[in-house]
């Protein structure tokens, strides 16, 4: 039990020390910081504070209480300044240069001691993510080094990695200050000062990461190509933000405030990161609500994938009750992105169905729509892992007996056992064909539609075969249907073009059977030759300008033409040439030798017009 005099003396000494360091007084207490100076000074000061606090509980005389309270206030105000100063001088924004866009001109402005660099294990920028975009000619450019799974090549940002933002000595000091402030009832001031300094530091790091502040209006107005670049940057930055920046701040709060009171570290943490976190997520949210159009699908999926990957870490970093809103927002954005992906797919299907271009593509070649669609769904099959989770319902607008002539029918029952995504893929091919059928009717020529269909279906088949994922989804059953269609179109083409040509080479009608002689009607024969020549020339002239881009298909077609044409002509020539050659001007009727025809067939489907002058190599 201390004697009143001793207690009084200790209090006086303590009070003197406190008052000496009064921030508001005009003494050198203002110009120096205690915690930057002599360690003994620090200890003395803290002891003085403790002494005053003890005095709080023991005095009951009102006057003394006033003195004590006054001293406490002076001490707390001082400690607040010291706290702020320690935080500021020991804070460095995280060096994030290696992850920022090399074209940005932000340079580091770190100050003070105790740099907190974080090692980046990667060398330069590795573009691991897909860079898929649609260019004007409908082709998809792909600069991929790997498939869709965003690999963790950034070892530093694939999982939470906290950094020590402040040295442990400083933390010790901060802790000793915080304890005293809080036990004196100055909790709010402590949180305020902590929050304001740390928030600045986070803001600075944030800016370095290149996350722009864009309003939703801004984002709606930007072109998609620009947005793709920003999304890419955002994905990289978000990983750093959540796994390193925010996680480290949380750790710092725990280091300083853990055990000092209830949930104070949570309050400080939220004070520090709430603003930046909202700003971070607002960008992703704005993307998730932007107007839907097909070319956006893949970047939206990238974003979805990245965010999904981050959610467990978001939940862990923001686990306290007061940061619930952030967790919720992240989940909402994820959901919206999924919704957007579904909507875009549906949009895409509608667009394919209703694509209205009415100008027939010259030469019956592959329609740009076909290329676009097949490239698109090939890319979709690359994203199969993600999309298979997201696409959960069948296409809604096709069903047998819909009675709607503007949409094709498809019996989904046949596709039992297939994933909804696969059904969508098949459906897209179905509606593509449906649209192409409509376009094929725009050709005036009777044969060209079939060639057109052949070209396009063949392209579809090639594309499906060329992508194992796509092939697996489409399935060999449907693939068989497609090749059947191809064959059908080939047959129709044959029929439309060659039946009448070969008709000229038929036997019936040439023989005049009489009672006494069986001979050949020379006039009829001449007519036949003339007709054949005219038709063949016409067909040759026209169909040379038609195009079958695929060399193999082109070959096969020519061969199938030759197979029918050449033997028929050879046989016809063989049987009847003598009748013509025995008459006048055989060259008017026999224009082509068999070799001629063989050569001319090679002109077919090259896509070039040929001169009217046909070589004559035939010997009379």
């Amino acid at each position: 039990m201390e004697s009143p005099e001793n207690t009084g003396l200790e209090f006086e000494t303590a009070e003197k020390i406190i008052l000496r360091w009064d921030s508001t007084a005009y003494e050198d207490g203002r110009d120096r910081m205690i915690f930057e100076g002599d360690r003994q000074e620090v200890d003395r000061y803290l002891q003085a504070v403790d002494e005053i606090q003890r005095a709080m509980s023991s005095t009951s005389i009102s006057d003394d209480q006033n003195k004590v309270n006054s001293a406490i206030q002076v001490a707390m105000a001082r400690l607040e300044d010291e706290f702020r100063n320690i935080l500021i001088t020991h804070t460095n924004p995280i060096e994030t240069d290696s992850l920022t866009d090399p074209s940005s001109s932000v340079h580091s402005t770190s100050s003070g001691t105790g740099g907190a660099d974080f090692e980046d294990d990667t060398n330069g920028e590795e573009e691991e993510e897909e860079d898929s975009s649609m260019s004007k000619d409908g082709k998809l450019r792909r600069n991929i080094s790997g498939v869709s799974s965003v690999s963790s090549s950034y070892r530093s940002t694939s999982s939470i990695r906290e950094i020590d933002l402040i040295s442990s000595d400083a933390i010790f000091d901060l802790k000793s200050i915080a304890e005293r402030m809080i036990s004196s009832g100055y909790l709010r001031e402590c949180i305020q000062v902590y929050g304001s300094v740390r928030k600045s530091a986070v803001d600075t790091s944030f800016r370095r990461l290149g996350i722009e502040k864009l309003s939703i209006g801004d984002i709606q107005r930007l072109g998609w190509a620009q947005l793709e670049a920003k999304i890419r940057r955002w994905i990289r930055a978000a990983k750093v933000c959540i796994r390193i920046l925010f996680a480290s701040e949380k750790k710092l709060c725990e280091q300083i405030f853990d055990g000092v009171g209830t949930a104070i570290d949570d309050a400080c943490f939220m004070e520090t990161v709430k603003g930046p976190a909202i700003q971070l997520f607002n960008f992703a949210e704005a993307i998730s609500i932007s107007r839907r159009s097909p070319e956006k699908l893949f970047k939206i999926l990238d974003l979805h994938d990245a965010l999904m990957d981050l959610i467990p870490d978001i939940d862990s970093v923001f686990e306290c009750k007061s940061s619930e809103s952030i967790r919720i927002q992240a989940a909402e954005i994820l959901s919206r992105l999924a919704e957007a992906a579904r909507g875009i797919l549906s949009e895409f299907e509608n667009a394919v169905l209703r694509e209205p271009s009415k100008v027939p593509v010259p030469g019956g070649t592959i329609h740009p729509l076909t290329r676009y669609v097949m490239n698109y769904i090939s890319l979709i099959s690359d994203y199969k892992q993600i999309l298979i989770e997201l696409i959960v319902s069948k296409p809604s607008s096709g069903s047998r007996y819909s009675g709607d002539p503007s949409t094709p029918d498809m019996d989904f029952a046949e596709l039992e056992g297939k994933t909804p995504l696969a059904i969508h893929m098949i459906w897209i091919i179905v509606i593509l064909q449906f649209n192409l059928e409509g376009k094929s009717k725009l050709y005036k020529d009777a044969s060209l539609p079939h060639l057109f269909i052949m070209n396009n279906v063949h392209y579809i088949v090639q594309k499906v075969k060329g992508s194992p994922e796509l092939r697996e989804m489409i399935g060999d059953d449907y693939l068989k249907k497609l090749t059947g269609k191809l064959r059908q179109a080939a047959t129709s083409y044959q029929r439309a073009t060659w039946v009448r040509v070969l008709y000229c080479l038929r036997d019936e009608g040439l023989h005049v059977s009489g009672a006494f002689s069986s001979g050949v009607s020379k006039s009829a024969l001449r007519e036949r030759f003339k007709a054949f020549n005219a038709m063949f020339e016409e067909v040759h002239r026209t169909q040379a300008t038609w195009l079958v881009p695929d060399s193999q298909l082109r070959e096969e077609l020519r061969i199938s033409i030759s197979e029918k044409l050449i033997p028929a002509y050879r046989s016809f020539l063989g049987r009847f040439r003598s009748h013509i050659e025995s008459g006048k001007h055989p060259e008017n009727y026999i224009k082509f030798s068999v070799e001629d025809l063989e050569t001319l067939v090679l002109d077919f489907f090259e896509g070039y017009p040929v001169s009217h002058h046909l070589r004559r190599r035939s010997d009379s």
Partner: protein
Amino acid sequence: MPATEYQGSFLGRISIRRNQVIAMDGNHEQELEDLELFQKHVADRFGELLAQPSDEIPNDPLLSIAWLRKLLDMFLCCEAEFKAVLIMGRDPSQISKPPLDRLLPEFLDRVVKALDICNAVSIGVDLVRHYQKLAEIVVSAMEQRPLGDGQVRRAKKALTSLVAAMTLEDGSNTKSTERTWSFGRRGSGAVANKDRAAAQFRSLSSTMAKNWSASKQIHAMSSNLVAPRGNESSGLALPVYIMSNIMVFVMWALVAAIPCQERNGLMTHFQVPRQLAWAQSMIGLQEKISEEWKKKEKKGCAGLLEEMQRLEKLGQSLIEFTDSFQFPIEAERLEEVKVQVDELAETCKKMEEGLVPLQLQIREVFHRVVRSRTEVLDVLDQAGKVSAPSM
């Protein structure tokens, strides 16, 4: 959860298309009735908001937290009804005909601005919570007994920060927050306090895009708002006009109440024709709020939120008290001060209880508006304005 609920309407959208064309004659009557009802409900709801508090019906003061929450509730109701009138069961082609083919895109543009305002105001609410916390320091200090020099100085420090922060002009934009770095040394003088408050405010408000301005957004939202005339006034152009006005009003009221980025020149004059029945109460509210705004704008205010006004008033008064404080304090003066401190505590309590729910409500408004926008876009697309894939 609002956003996940929306998953359902992916199919719902298709069902709108499938669910037939409504025969004009059969349901035309119904349509007109719905429009009438819509207008009546709007008028009623705004009437409630305008009503003066009286002894029988204790109403929330204009632009208090509770009043704002009611406003947002009312907005959600109107919005739901609007959507029903405009979209449900309707053949998409009706919505893409003139004049809607022009009016709806304009409406959607307003919607996007409203979303940004929701975000800005939500950030502003965080700033208000910051004021609340400063005020709570004051309360905590001034409730101590005996009230001594220490507590009063503590209160004064917090009060100075509070008042400085609240009388700042909020146009200051993205000045580098690096200024806070230099504060370590200069202790706790009044100037430093003000600078600290300024820096805090700037860093809070700089979360919005750089040149974004709340007042400009509001102005843009209302600039092409023209009352439908002639035979347009009985069709769907009318509910679109009404809802647009409601949206502009609600956003405007939020911006007037809560500090957010760049409110200089916030418009105070609206062009709603006075004779429209549904608009009477709304016009009344506009006038009242405009008056207040004009008064305060001269002094440079942080916002018209009633609780904040109270904080400001009490803050000024309490600063005066602290300036003239002498220990020990007479019982009479203590009583006087206690009344004010109690009022301050009461206001803080209202803020503590109301601000977070307010933020949640703003978020709900955000969700709802996004959902409606998507649905309108879907219907417009169905109506045949399909963009061909870029080829």
